[in-house]
C-alpha cells in the first residue's frame, strides 16, 4: 500500500496529465465516429448565437457573389415554370397530375460558420430541430452538394462537409451511369476522388459527376463536380478518379437542406436486407 502511494506521489503529474488527456481523447475519437450530443459543438445554442452575431457582421463580404449564384439558379428554375412553357395540345383540358408525388422538400438555411483547411471540416447552419432538421439529411447549394447533417441542436445544426475523411456519398458519372463513392484525401479543398469505378469502362475527362440518390439522402442528379483525371489503381481493376468540386467550399453561404419525405419507407424496406449482409 505504501509503495502504491509512493508510486502515485512520484508520478502524480504524469498521472494527472494522463487523466485529462484521456478525457480529451475520448471526446475526440467518440465524436468523430459516433456523433451523439450537440453540446460540445457549435450546434449548441450558446456557440450558435456567437457565430450568428459574427455572421451578421461578415455576411456582406460575399454578398455580390452569392447574389449572382442565386440569380443564375433562379434563371435555371424559371425555365421549368409553367408560364415559360408553350402549350402544344391546346384542346385538351389539363387535369391534376397524379403521376408525380413530391418526394423531396427543401429547407433554406444560411452557413454561419465553416472550416475548409482541416482534416475534417464542418459547417454550422442556422436551422435546427425547430425547423425540422434531422440527422443525416443532405445539404446542397446552388452549385452542388455540400455534405450531410452530422448533429442537430435546437436552433442550429452541424453539417459534415464533403471535405471530411469518411463522407461516402453515393455518386455516379452522369453520362455512363457508373457509380461509386465520394472520398476526400484531406489536402486540397477543391478536389475529391471517386472510388469503386471499374476500369473496364472508359471515363471521359470533364464528364459530370452527380449524386446517385441511392441512399435517399440526395435526389438523383445533383451536381458534385467534374472528372479531372483518372489513374489506374495498382493491383485492382478500378480507376482512381480525381474530381474537381463544382462548389467552392470557402465561399458558400446560402444552402438548402433536403428532407426526403419517403425516406422512412425506403429504410423500412431495406432494413431486413441490410441485416442479412
Amino acid at each position: 500500500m505504501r509503495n502504491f502511494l509512493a508510486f502515485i506521489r512520484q508520478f502524480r503529474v504524469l498521472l494527472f496529465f494522463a487523466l485529462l488527456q484521456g478525457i480529451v481523447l475520448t471526446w475526440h475519437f467518440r465524436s468523430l465516429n459516433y456523433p451523439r450530443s450537440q453540446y460540445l459543438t457549435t450546434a449548441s445554442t450558446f456557440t450558435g448565437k456567437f457565430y450568428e452575431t459574427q455572421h451578421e457582421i461578415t455576411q456582406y463580404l460575399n454578398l455580390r457573389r452569392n447574389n449572382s449564384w442565386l440569380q443564375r439558379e433562379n434563371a435555371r428554375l424559371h425555365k421549368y415554370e409553367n408560364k415559360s412553357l408553350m402549350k402544344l395540345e391546346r384542346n385538351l383540358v389539363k387535369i391534376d397530375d397524379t403521376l408525380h408525388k413530391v418526394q423531396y422538400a427543401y429547407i433554406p438555411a444560411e452557413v454561419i460558420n465553416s472550416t475548409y483547411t482541416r482534416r475534417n471540416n464542418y459547417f454550422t447552419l442556422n436551422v435546427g430541430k425547430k425547423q425540422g432538421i434531422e440527422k443525416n439529411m443532405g445539404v446542397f447549394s446552388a452549385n452542388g452538394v455540400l455534405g450531410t447533417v452530422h448533429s442537430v441542436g435546437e436552433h442550429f445544426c452541424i453539417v459534415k462537409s464533403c471535405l471530411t475523411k469518411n463522407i461516402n456519398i453515393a455518386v455516379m458519372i452522369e453520362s455512363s451511369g457508373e457509380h461509386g463513392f465520394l472520398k476526400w484525401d484531406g489536402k486540397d479543398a477543391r478536389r475529391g476522388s471517386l472510388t469503386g469505378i471499374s476500369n473496364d469502362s472508359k471515363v471521359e475527362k470533364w464528364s459530370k459527376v452527380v449524386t446517385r440518390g441511392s441512399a435517399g439522402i440526395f435526389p438523383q442528379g445533383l451536381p458534385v463536380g467534374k472528372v479531372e483525371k483518372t489513374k489506374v489503381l495498382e493491383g485492382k481493376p478500378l480507376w482512381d478518379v480525381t474530381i474537381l468540386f463544382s462548389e467552392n467550399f470557402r465561399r458558400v453561404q446560402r444552402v438548402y437542406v433536403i428532407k426526403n419525405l419517403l425516406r422512412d419507407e425506403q429504410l423500412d424496406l431495406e432494413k431486413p436486407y441490410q441485416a442479412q449482409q
Partner: protein
Amino acid sequence: MSSSIIQHIIRFLLVFLLQVLILNQIEIGYGIQLMIYPLFIFLLPVEMNVFYLMLLAFGLGGFIDYFSNTFGLHASSLLVFAYFRPIIFKIFAPRDGYDLLLETNLFNMGRSWFIRSFGLLLIIHHFWFFLLEIFKLSEILYILKQTGLSVVLSFILCVLFQYLFLRKPKKEL
C-alpha cells in the same frame, strides 16, 4: 497581485477571441494553421503549479474546441504544451534561476532564451496537433511539413502579439 490576475484573464479572452474569430477563418494554403493560444499558457507565472497549468490548458483548449468543431484537438495539444512547460523551463533555466516577479516574455527573458524554449514547446504542440488530426503514420512526412510551416508562422504571430499587447520594460540605466 490582483492586477496581474486581471491581466491574465484579459489575455485569456483576447487570445481566445483572436483564435476563434480571426485565425480560424484565415486560409493560407499548404495546410498551414495559425495558433496563438499557446502563448497564454507560456506567459503564466513561472512558479505556477503544473496542475493548475494543465487545468487552465484543458479549459482554454476545450473552449476553443467547443467553438471550432475540432472535438478536443486543441485541448489535447495544449495539455501536452502545459505538461512540457516546466520541463523545458528547467532545462533552459538561466544560471541564477528565474526572477519570479518577471513574466517570461520576449522582453524580460531575452531573444535567444525565448526562441529556444518557446520554439521547442511550440514544435511539440504543433506536432501533436497535426499527428492527432491526421492520425495516419503513412503520412508522417506531410505531418512534418505542416508542423514545420505552421510553427514558423505561429511563432512570428506570437512575437507580434507581444510587441503589440505587452508593455516593454523600461531600460534601467
